[in-house]
Each structure stands twice: as structure tokens, then as C-alpha cells.
């Protein structure tokens, strides 16, 4: 049951609209209820072949030898694909937008780093024949010690999971092994606090479990191109990832998708398109590669587990004066998108509250499990679990009503946030007040009268003196440069307190963008070759 509270913030809205705000029927609903909606797999192609992947049974092992003689003779087998057949068998998803180094092979060559990692693919006339051929492949593995705990992985002597990052943690800005957030001085905050509370929170990996599993169909198209029916959540992202891995111009591909049986973040990683296309290239026939449910659950990328240490200083009157976070993202064997999760997580601290001293160290850690990826609420969901459980404990500690405790500490318009931007368009207080009203949760009058639009800014708008880590080495040339990048930014001078950010240079008159920090154009996405 949904109620629109039009009375709140009415003065900021123009509700004189015709189509916006109406509960118009979905454009795709008739297709859904008649079964006419067309998903990637709902295509009949003449002479379709089926691709199955041989996956590693070991979490960490060296590949000494692969014997495919018997498999190649197995009935119905059209082609066997190994790592050596992949034109560029090393990639990381965000290399397309200039973030992170290539660290993941499409098919493992020397080493397998997680149980289920693809080692070899077989393209055959039928599912059965593909399975039979896979059963005849002999792989000689040399098992290696594996590490599954994020903190163990960071200890000296831990097995090296991903040689691109030998310390088992993603490198940020070429200098740090974690993403930082520094705002004010938390140690001074803790010293002045009436109570200090440190807690540990732990989330475990979660599967997107869309009812449609990952998959794609690739087929030779006209004029030397390939048509690819795909379940991707990001059409051009996947198209360009395939262009890079298969080392062909991006217009070699004609991607068709758009109707997906649930994504939730689990269909961004371009898991099946590269091999399906390569299969079509090598056999000249349409090839379908679709994850089975067990594959999706155990070897499809999950939402990464996170371990969070959260320390707060709070005053008797309920004001939180310091919040320190140390968090570990379990990226699994490869980077994929987890490197960005740590950045998004750092930006989220300390949650929707104005706290004068905030400190964050967020690690993106490699372990020998299925590589994690984005999932609904990426980088924020687990941190919100930790923060909001901790807020309840702090309220309990100072004997304050949990709702009132949220309103007291809530951020308001004009406050300075920990990532040093002014809080605007805030509405946490109103949400708490309305939820309390709906749940018949008593609030004292003074808290009912508080507003996101009152009592913000002023002293709360200042960037407090901040202690930065002592060893801040000069910044080297920056990450993998592409020919389209401008010269690297000069090392950022310490920002003057409360700087007026320069007006954003935007190629088109984007409607009234909010103020941003220094602008650095990254590569022109999509049309460049590396």
C-alpha cells in the first residue's frame, strides 16, 4: 500500500504535470503476460551450437598440462577453445573507463585462482555432446595454498592470489593499498567523547539469483559482423569489453538486448559474450552460451562480502563527535568492479549524519573465491547495515529514543559532508518523522518540529582541520594513460578551507549541474583502441 505525501516539500515542487506522476501501465506489461516479451534466449537460429566451459575444481592451482586429444575426437565437437585462442586474454572491466589494471584472463592459462574459473571451452552440436567432451579433457593441476579470509589475505606470507596486485589488495592512485577518507581528527574526537564504542560487522556473499541466468547467443551476421543477443545490463559496456578481448573494432558487433530477466548487478560483467562470439568466429556458426543454475549460483559473481570495523565517539546528550571505519571488501580472485565499491563506500561515510570528525580506510582485498561484482546498493548496503546497527547501540548507550537520536544527528541543508561537499536537498529528518507517524512511534514535540531545512550550515558548514597521513609521496604519472587523455593533473595542492569549486566545464549545456571538484576528462569512452 503506497501513500504519496504531497503535503511535504510541496513548496519546492511544481505538480502541474500531465503524464509525469501518473500510474501509466508499463510499456512491456502486455508482452510479459502473453509471453511475447523476447529475452536473449528466445531466438531460433539455424545450426545453433552449444558452448560449455570446463571449470577449475581447485580454488588455487597451477595448470601444468591440459590433454584434449580424446575430447577433440568426441562426437559432435566442433571446436575447442583455450586461453591461447583468446586474442587478448587479459582484461579488467573498468579498464574501459580508465580505472584499474588488466588482471583477469577469459580462459585461465598458467594458474586458476578460484574454484569454477573457466579453463577451456567446448563448442558442440548438443548440450549432451559438449558435456561428454568436457568429461574427456584431462587437466594436470598442481594445487597451491589458498586464502579465503580478507584479513588473512593481507598478512605477510599470505598466498598471492592475483599477481597484478601482489599484496592482495587493489592499488589506489598508484600509491595507496586502500581508499582513504580523512575529515577532521577522529582521535581528538574520541578523546573528548563521553562514550566510545567499537564494533565488528560481517556480511557474506549474496547471489543476484535472477530467474534468467547469464547468457548470450552470437552468430555470424552480414558484412563480416556478428550479431549478439545478450542478457547484459550494459549494452555498450559489454560490446566494448568484447571488442577489447577479441581485438576487433567495436563496430564488428551488433548487440541486441534490452529485455532482461532480472539483473540486480549480476549481468554487468560480460561473462558469456566474449566466448560465445569467439565460438561463432572459430566455427562460423551461431553459438549459445548460457549459465546453468549451479554455475550462476557458485561461479556467477556474487555481491562481495564485507567486514567492517566501526568505532564511534558519542556525547551524553546524543551528539556523535567521531566516526572511524576500517572496511574490507572481499573482491574474490579478480578486481572486476570491487575497486570502485571501496571508493563509493568511502564517499558514503559517515552515513546521513553530520559528524565533525570522520576517518575511513576501505580495502579491496583479493581472496581465492569467485570474483565479486556489483549488486543492488553496491558499496553502500553493507555499510548501512553496520552504521544503522551501531546507531541503535549508541542510542541505547546514551538512553535516547532511536528515532530522536537519528533526528538529532541527521544531516541538514548547508552542512559540510565528509567528502567535502555541501549537503543539499536533504530529507532524512522528514523520512524519520513520517515513518514514526505511520508506525505510531512516539516522538517528542521538539523532534516533530525539526526539519532538514532548518539549523544546518553555519559552523556545521566548515571543513575542520584535518590530519592527513604523514607519508604522502609525490603523485606519480597516474594510471594507464590512453592517447585520448589530457596531460595528468598536477599533484593536488592541499585544498584551501571551504574552497569555491571551479565552475564545471561541460561539453553540452547539461541542465544546472551541481558544483564539482577539479575536472579531469578521462578517455572518450568507446571509440578508442588500446
Amino acid at each position, binding site marked *: 500500500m503506497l501513500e*504519496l505525501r504531497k503535503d*511535504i*516539500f510541496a513548496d519546492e*515542487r511544481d505538480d502541474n*504535470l*500531465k*503524464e509525469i*506522476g501518473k500510474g501509466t501501465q*508499463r*510499456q512491456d506489461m502486455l508482452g510479459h503476460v502473453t509471453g511475447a516479451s523476447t529475452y536473449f534466449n528466445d531466438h531460433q537460429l539455424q545450426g545453433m551450437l552449444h558452448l560449455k566451459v570446463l571449470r577449475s575444481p581447485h580454488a588455487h592451482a597451477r595448470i601444468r598440462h591440459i590433454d584434449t586429444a580424446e575430447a577433440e575426437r568426441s562426437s559432435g565437437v566442433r571446436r575447442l577453445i583455450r586461453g591461447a585462442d583468446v586474442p587478448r586474454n587479459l582484461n579488467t572491466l573498468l579498464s574501459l573507463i580508465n580505472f584499474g589494471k588488466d588482471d583477469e584472463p577469459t580462459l585461465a592459462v598458467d594458474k586458476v585462482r578460484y574454484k569454477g574459473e573457466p579453463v577451456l571451452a567446448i563448442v558442440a552440436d548438443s548440450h549432451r555432446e559438449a558435456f561428454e567432451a568436457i568429461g574427456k579433457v584431462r587437466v594436470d593441476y598442481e594445487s597451491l595454498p589458498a586464502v579465503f579470509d580478507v584479513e588473512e589475505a593481507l598478512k605477510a606470507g599470505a598466498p598471492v592470489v592475483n599477481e597484478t596486485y601482489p599484496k592482495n589488495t587493489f592499488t589506489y592512485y598508484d600509491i595507496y593499498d586502500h*581508499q582513504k577518507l580523512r575529515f577532521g581528527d577522529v582521535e581528538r574526537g574520541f578523546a573528548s567523547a563521553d562514550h566510545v564504542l567499537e564494533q565488528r560487522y*560481517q556480511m557474506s*556473499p*549474496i547471489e543476484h*539469483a535472477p530467474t534468467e541466468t547469464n547468457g548470450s547467443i552470437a552468430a555470424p551476421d552480414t558484412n563480416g559482423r556478428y550479431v549478439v543477443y545478450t542478457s547484459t545490463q*550494459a*549494452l555498450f559496456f559489454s*560490446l566494448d569489453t568484447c571488442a577489447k578481448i577479441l581485438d576487433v573494432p567495436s563496430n564488428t*558487433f*551488433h548487440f541486441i*538486448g534490452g*529485455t*532482461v530477466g*532480472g*539483473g540486480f548487478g549480476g549481468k554487468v560483467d560480460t561473462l558469456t559474450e566474449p566466448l560465445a562470439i569467439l565460438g561463432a568466429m572459430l566455427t562460423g556458426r551461431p553459438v549459445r552460451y548460457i549459465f546453468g*543454475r549451479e554455475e550462476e*549460483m*557458485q561461479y556467477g559473481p556474487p555481491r562481495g*562480502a564485507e567486514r567492517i570495523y566501526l568505532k564511534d565517539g558519542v556525547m551524553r546528550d546524543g551528539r556523535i563527535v567521531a566516526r572511524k571505519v576500517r572496511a574490507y571488501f572481499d573482491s574474490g580472485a579478480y578486481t572486476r568492479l570491487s575497486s570502485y565499491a571501496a*571508493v*563509493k563506500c568511502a*564517499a*558514503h561515510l559517515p552515513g*546521513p549524519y553530520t559528524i565533525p570528525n570522520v576517518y*575511513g580506510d576501505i580495502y579491496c582485498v583479493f*581472496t581465492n*573465491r569467485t570474483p565479486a561484482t556489483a549488486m543492488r546498493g*553496491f558499496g*553502500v*548496503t*553493507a555499510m548501512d547495515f553496520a552504521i544503522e*546497527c551501531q546507531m*541503535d547501540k549508541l542510542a541505547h548507550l546514551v538512553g535516547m529514543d532511536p528515532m530522536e537520536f537519528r533526528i538529532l544527528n*541527521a544531516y541538514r541543508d548547508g552542512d559540510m559532508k565528509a567528502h567535502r561537499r555541501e549537503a*543539499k536537498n*536533504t*530529507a*532524512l529528518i522528514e*523520512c524519520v518523522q*513520517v*515513518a514514526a507517524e*505511520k*508506525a505510531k512511534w512516539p516522538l517528542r514535540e521538539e523532534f516533530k518540529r525539526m526539519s532538514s531545512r532548518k539549523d544546518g550550515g553555519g559552523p556545521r558548514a566548515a571543513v575542520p582541520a584535518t590530519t592527513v597521513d604523514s607519508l*604522502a609521496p609525490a603523485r606519480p604519472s597516474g594510471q594507464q594513460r590512453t592517447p585520448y587523455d589530457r596531460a595528468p593533473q598536477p599533484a593536488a595542492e592541499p585544498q584551501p578551507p571551504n574552497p569555491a569549486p571551479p565552475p564545471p566545464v561541460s561539453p*553540452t549545456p547539461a*541542465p*544546472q*549541474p551541481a558544483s*564539482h571538484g577539479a575536472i*579531469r576528462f578521462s578517455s572518450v569512452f568507446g571509440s578508442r583502441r588500446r
Partner: protein
Amino acid sequence: MAMHRGRGIASINYPIGMNLGGDPSQALVHSNPSGKFTVSLSSIDLGQGMKSVTRQICAETLGVPVEDVYVDTADSDTGPHCMGSFASRGTHRVGNAVMAAAKEARGVMMEAAAEELEVNAADLETDGRGNIHVKGAPHRSISTKDVAIAAQFRQGKTISGRGIFLVPLSAVDPETGEMSPATCYAHACMVAEVEVDDETGEVTMVRMDSAYELGRALNPRLVEQQLVGGAWMGISHALYETTEPYYPDPGHGPRDFVEYLMPGPGDICPHDIAVLERPAADGPFGAKGPGEMCANPVMPAVANAIFNAVGVRVDELPITPEKVLRAIKAQGGARPQARR
């Protein structure tokens, strides 16, 4: 054997969009001589309603009924570039791109109408039902169909438009983490009520009351779909699902839908939702994106409700009956907290 009830709350905000390599989306709007419009995208509909929301945004911006607009998406040969459907960026980025494209198309349409009615374009307005008339003189009117025919066959104008919306990359200061992560934030508060069996640790959802602030409910039915479905996923994350039940030990991972635990149709509870709208300065009609954040408040609210019911804090997800039972036994039995 006793069943204990408890209530817990959580309040959150959520960043709209991505700060990674620049976050652009493009849109094309074109029409045919019968005055019908097509929005051409390459953005993906995962079920969140991408096609439906952009259709309404285009119709509103053009000033035509939604029935005159259809969205065609995800053919890389026809659709313009888009980063993809994730990070709550769809409504905001693609919506703005569609608005920009529709504005340009509207501009041409109004010029063509002005030429037909021999007035200044600035004196014209659309009635949202397929007609364009002189402000204050509704009888001096022309249908968008006739304008389209005139534009095509007499005036030689193409009623179409292109749009791009880019939130430029905001560089992150390595020392302080200073950055512009997002241009606007959605908000929410959730009150969850649970019942805990203190002999088995089983937790049952009793009800949820929530308030979500989303800038603008572009389509309240689609918003309701996200908030109801998102809350269900929140319950699933809170009490049920994981690919590694014994994490960080990778063993006993589920391989099918019997082993992978998610709330069934018999596990759902009433959920009473209020939606607030404080428009974002740069959102299409103020809209932010409800799709991702709607699950986030449920997990902590449920954990806090379990504490209120039996006095145990379980800080590890999912909060299985075993974790609740072990905590109850460790403190020598249930300790219900003050009822709120």
C-alpha cells in the same frame, strides 16, 4: 517456549548515479509524419521500468499524450550510447538525456506549428492531448498530427532531437577522499516489526512501515513495484540468503533454489509505504532513483527489531536462526527490551 515481538528502525540516504570515468547517457527522439514519437536508447530494462519511465518523461517534455510515444532500446546499431543500467543512474541520467532530446524535438515542433498558425512560437502551448494552440486562445489550434505533416511535406523540418546528460568524473583526492560522489541523494526510514521464537531462534516478519524520499515519483505504480520488491529483497538479505553459509569457509555453497534461501510467498508481511518528494535540482522533474536503495534500510531495521524482541545483537548477515539461538543461549535466555 515463548514468542517475543520487537520493533527496530533504520534511516539511510543513497547516492544517485556513478562517479566513474564520467557517467554519460544519450537519447534520440524522432517522429513520423503522423505525429507519433519514438525514443531511441540503448539502455536496458531489467524489469525496473526503464522503457516505461523514459516514455513518460518524453511525452511530458514534448507535451503530447504518452500513447503517442514508444521507446525502442538496446540495439547497438540504432540506439545512441549509454553506460548501462546500474548505480541508480537510469532514471536520472537517461531521463535527463531523454528530456534534452525531447526539448529539441519540441522546439522544432513548436516552430513548425508557429509557421502553420502564423504566430510566434513563444505564444504557443501544448495541451498534452495532441493539440497546440495559442496561449489564451484555445480555438486557434492545430493538432500535432497536422504539424508533423506540415513539417515533413511543406516546411522540410525534422521534428527530432538528440540529448546527452553527462555528470563529469570528479577526481578523488587520494589523501582526503574529497570528491563529488553524486549530484543528489534519496532518503528512507524503515520501522520493522519481528517475532522471535526463543527456543529455535526463528525470526518471522510481522510488518514494515516505511517512508522513502525520491525527488519525484515519476510513476507511482513503478515506484511501488521497486519499494515492495526491494523490501522483500531486504528481508531476504537480512534473514535468509548467502552463497557461503559458513563464510569465510567456502563450503556447502547452495547449487539450486532449494538450497539458496529466499523468503517464499508465505513469508511476506504487510508493508505500509509513504513516499515523499523533494525534487533534486538536476533530476528529470526532480526524480532520483528508488531502485537500489529500497532494500538497504530493511537489514539493520530487522537486526534492531531482533534486539528489541530478545535483547541479542547479531552483527553478521544473514541473521539465521542459529545465530539468534546461539546469542540467546550465550546470555542465558531472552531479554526483551522496552517496547517502543
